[in-house]
């Protein structure tokens, strides 16, 4: 008896692509975490090499060193794959959907149909004009051609669009039998309107935005939002984060006026449909295209993975391992080793506290202990001696989420130090990260 498929899923649920204009995507690699406090090692890992013209693919392991840019100096885009997984009725486990699965169901690769929908809403978020929505959708496809995600917008010049990347259904084979889709992001280019005077704006890849139809080139924000509270409440946070020029400089009603620039970042959804004759099964995943990681052997101390994990499992853990706590400390070390902490202590964060809430301008830590080398050494000592009680000290030093607006001397010295959170205040880890460190500290 033929088994029935209960559901399909696309994995990973959120795939991050990274911009780059090279036609040759970045190969795969592993980050090997050392036993000491040194940087993670980047080592080659099995890479799927795709022939763009046909969609055929082969598995290769690249050689060292991993090349993050091509010989022409262009950055290699990170172009993630999304795999189709499935679960048979009556089973608990998901398993990869392969050409063998297709055969067992008397289906062909064409029984899988893909579609993609991404948008870039950066202009719309500011102007509020629905005609500033940049949208790219593919038609449903089952072939193995490259399907461009061409961003179209009612306020573009006639016939113009911007490439937001592409999707390609990889041809399954004996070697790579899984059903997979690849998202290749765009080049990381800047677009805008035609210049008013010169023939060509050298700063943009192409002139596509029609400044007569849309307001993005005329859009402005007050540099002092208290001058325009009704508009200020709805601006991005922080405001003024677009390319432009200052109007009425030095006046109370000074504003930043947009040059009409935007980029080819995007996010959205890819969907797989498995057509089973009488009915179809669907699965979707999210894709995002952002900038490259310029220190790819480092990881951020608080990441989107931490947000997702907390949203899924709540703010508390029952238990945590030393390894989990060590990874958080290592990420902190990776941040401070590339950060001028003395500068942030005297200027960056310290000055921002005064600008935001009129706190007295003072260094956050004693300047004598805030130098980058000293702070790095302190983090290294904590990482090396987690079992000897330093984790308990670290746990006590952590800032809790409801202490982020404590600008007292002691409040600003809690950990993570010299960093800003998503609310613009001094940063706290997720409550779940804090819980992990506290639980691990109690266990050792």
């Amino acid at each position, binding site marked *: 008896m033929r088994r029935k498929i209960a559901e399909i899923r696309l994995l990973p*649920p959120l795939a991050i692509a990274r911009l780059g204009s090279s036609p040759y995507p970045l*190969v795969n*690699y592993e980050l090997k975490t050392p036993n000491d406090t040194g940087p993670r090692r980047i080592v080659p890992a*099995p890479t*799927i090499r795709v022939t763009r013209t046909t969609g055929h693919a082969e598995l290769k392991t690249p050689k060292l060193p991993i090349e*993050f840019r091509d010989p022409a100096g*262009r950055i290699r885009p*990170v172009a*993630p794959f999304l795999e189709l997984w499935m*679960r048979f009725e009556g089973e*608990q486990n998901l398993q990869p959907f392969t050409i063998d699965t297709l055969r067992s169901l008397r289906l062909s690769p064409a029984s899988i149909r893909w579609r993609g*929908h991404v*948008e*870039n*809403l*950066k202009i*719309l*978020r500011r102007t509020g004009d629905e005609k500033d929505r940049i949208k790219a959708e593919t038609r449903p496809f089952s072939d193995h051609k490259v399907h461009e995600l061409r961003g179209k917008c009612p306020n573009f010049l006639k016939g113009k669009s911007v490439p937001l990347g592409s999707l390609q259904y990889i041809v399954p084979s004996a070697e790579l039998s*899984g059903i997979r889709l690849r998202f290749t992001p765009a080049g990381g280019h800047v677009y805008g309107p035609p210049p008013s005077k010169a023939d060509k704006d050298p700063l*943009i890849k192409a002139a596509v935005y029609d400044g007569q139809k849309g307001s993005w080139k005329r859009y402005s924000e007050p540099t002092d939002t208290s001058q325009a509270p009704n508009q200020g*409440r*709805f601006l991005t*946070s922080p405001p003024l984060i677009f*390319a432009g020029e200052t109007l009425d400089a030095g006046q109370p009603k000074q504003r930043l006026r947009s040059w009409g620039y935007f*980029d080819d970042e995007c*996010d*959205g959804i890819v969907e797989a449909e498995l057509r089973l004759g009488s009915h179809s099964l669907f699965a*979707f995943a999210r894709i*995002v295209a*952002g900038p490259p990681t310029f220190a*790819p052997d*480092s*990881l*951020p101390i*608080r*990441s*989107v993975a931490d*947000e997702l*994990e*907390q949203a*899924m499992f709540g*703010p508390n853990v029952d238990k945590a391992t030393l390894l989990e706590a060590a990874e958080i400390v290592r990420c902190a070390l990776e*941040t401070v*080793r*590339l950060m*001028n902490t003395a*500068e*942030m202590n005297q200027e960056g964060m310290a000055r*921002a506290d005064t600008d935001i*809430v009129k706190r*007295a301008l003072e260094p956050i830590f004693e300047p004598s202990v805030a130098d980058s*080398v000293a702070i790095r050494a302190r983090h290294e000592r904590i990482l090396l001696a987690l079992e000897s009680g330093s984790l308990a000290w670290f746990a006590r030093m952590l800032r809790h989420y*409801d202490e*982020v*607006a404590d*600008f007292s001397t002691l409040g*600003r010295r809690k950990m993570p130090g010299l960093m*800003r959170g*998503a*609310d613009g205040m001094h940063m706290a880890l997720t409550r779940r990260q804090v819980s992990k460190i506290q639980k691990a500290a109690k266990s050792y």
Partner: protein
Amino acid sequence: MNDKIEAKNLSAQLQFRALGNPPSTLPNSAISNCCPGLEMDFRNAWKRIFVGIELHESSNFVVKVDPSAPELHELANNYQLMKVQGVPVMATATGPLIPDGPNVPLPDSDGDDALIPLEWSNVLAGVIYNSAGKLVECEFQSMDPPVRNLAFNLRVRNFFENAVIARDLLKPGELTQSLCSPWQNDYRECGCFYWAASRPDYVNVELSEDGNSIGHNWMQRDRTPETAKVYVSDDFLDERLLSYNDLFNGWEKALRFVIGNEDEPPIDGGPKK
């Protein structure tokens, strides 16, 4: 290649790394102290967490109300969310107004006590986990005088469909909508240099004779082994640093990778010193 994952094991699915995908495709490579963020502004994920209203992505302002919920329409007139299930979602900023002074409530730009909206991820962590799909009491206050208070029981949306952020929580384009435009602006103008994995700050660092560190600003044009190790402080007018224009039309050759604490050599065709 993984050959099986328990369907209920959503954690494994969240962390799943597909064959051939580099580590930088994973959510743990993307920053989430988003102000506004680099890869995405994750704050947008929370704005539709309560059915019937849409919140500002980085604040507690109600920016939209569902037209099919007439009982909520008053909230469209400049209201902010104050408490959820009795838990305040704002905190008062406190600290010294003068050096070594007492800790007092600090003023905002209007001179009022600065009430700071806490980030949704942390302040709502318990609500999202314990009350997804359920009604919770939400207390609102008008932002314009006279102060009016309203309370409604709103349903908390499910954050996930399996392990994917739910469709009705976040529409295409919304994860990136509040990032810099263009994204290169964030590399030039943001005064926060702690996104080391994506945007290093301090490179070629070594110990000087006085026991303090010396090194280069990652945005310095001139960064060779021979370049004097003097960190040039951020100033967009300083020509020793990369400019907006350098990044808009030449970011790929202007921004250099830092691997194993080693600064990549200058790229042919990159910006001049």
